[in-house]
């Protein structure tokens, strides 16, 4: 519970720090990306503290490159 509050608080703080300057300079694309990344991070963080198992990108990498790795390993056994 505390962790979730912490994550949300951090996200809000970060937004408060950076957004005013960005809005003043009307950086729309940047703002969009900013919030996208922020929300993604917060989302992952919250999911993690609730111990929801999340898809692990490393698994995707393993799926792509794993076979090559195994091939080379066995060739050099």
């Amino acid at each position, binding site marked *: 519970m505390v962790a979730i509050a912490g994550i949300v608080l951090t996200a809000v703080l*970060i937004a408060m720090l950076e957004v005013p300057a960005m809005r003043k300079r009307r*950086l729309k694309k*940047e703002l969009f*990306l900013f919030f996208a*990344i*922020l929300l993604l*991070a917060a989302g*992952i*963080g919250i999911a993690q503290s609730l111990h929801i198992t999340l898809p692990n990108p490393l698994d995707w990498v393993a799926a792509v490159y794993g076979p090559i790795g195994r091939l080379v390993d066995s060739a*050099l056994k």
Partner: protein
Amino acid sequence: MNERISGRQFALMAAYVAIGDSMLVLPSIPINDAQQNAWISALVGLAAGMMVVWLLSAAGRLYPHLTLVQAAEQLLGKWIGKAVSALFVAYLFLSIGAHTREIGDFLTTQMMPETPIQAIHIMYAGILAMAARLGLETIARTGEFFFSFFIVFLAAFILFLIPDIKLNNLLPVLDGGIKPILRGSITMTAYPFMELAVLLMAIPAVRKPQAIHANFMRGAFMGGAVVLLIILLSILVLGPDYATRSIYPSYALAKKINVGRFFQRLEVILAFMWLLTSFIKSAIFFKVLQTAIAQTAGLRTEKRLELPLGMLVVCFSLIISSNIIDFHEADHYWPYMDMTFSVILSLVLLAAYAIRRAARRKGTTGSGNKGKD
């Protein structure tokens, strides 16, 4: 990109990226595969690595005033270029997450077991964000500042270990044949050298483009040599048996230092050295990530995204694996991802360049456009 770096700073950055996390994490892998011949693996890796760097340098110098992302768009067309860049961004991001995780793992297992790993990651990401905000020049200068300390500590480290060297540990040589040695050399080529691809994003910052090649090679060599030295020392002092069993052989090495009764417990200095090289490497990666995102998405300003990125890195580094053994499984396939974004990417760019030039020559009938690019 409006940063300005000198040739020497570029070489230093190459050295830092090459040493990076390899100093701590790398030695156990070749030693695992090739046992006491791991130093030969390292030599092979060094040689192969220098060739990789040569390739990277060639690709980078096609358009010395453009970053990798910009060059990709130029050479491969807007959409394919952006797709490639997006993949590159993902690669960078995964790398940073992995680096952070390594630091967290190391600290929680070896030095500070009671500290929650999230806290360590948060602080690390925090300082990465700060570094990126301050810019590549600042990162280069910080690296320069610490470099003298690093050399001094490294020299002292080696010096104090000399009494414990047992040359027998190198024998028997080549007993397993060439295959285990080759297997061990894969990570040695990948982690220090292929990951130097990241510097292709920093090439426009170098003040004198003609200094790029020499400094790139020099820095990479220096970094690779340090890693080789560490692997060699690990075998010589710890012996292949013990070295295989520890995840962090260089840390184990540091623990062994016992000069007089005073210079013990100095592994903390090693931890500092390793944190330093890792930090500079990660900082470079992070800054490059920021630039790459900005250039791929066509943003007007590079800055201002560090904090959310940092937060994402923290979260990411925590999902990456449930425990440390799992994570090190990645050593079996990560080098190939490194290879994709260094060797294959460079070859693609070089090929595209050659094709374009040939097409241009065919297209113009003797109007002397050869020297255009």
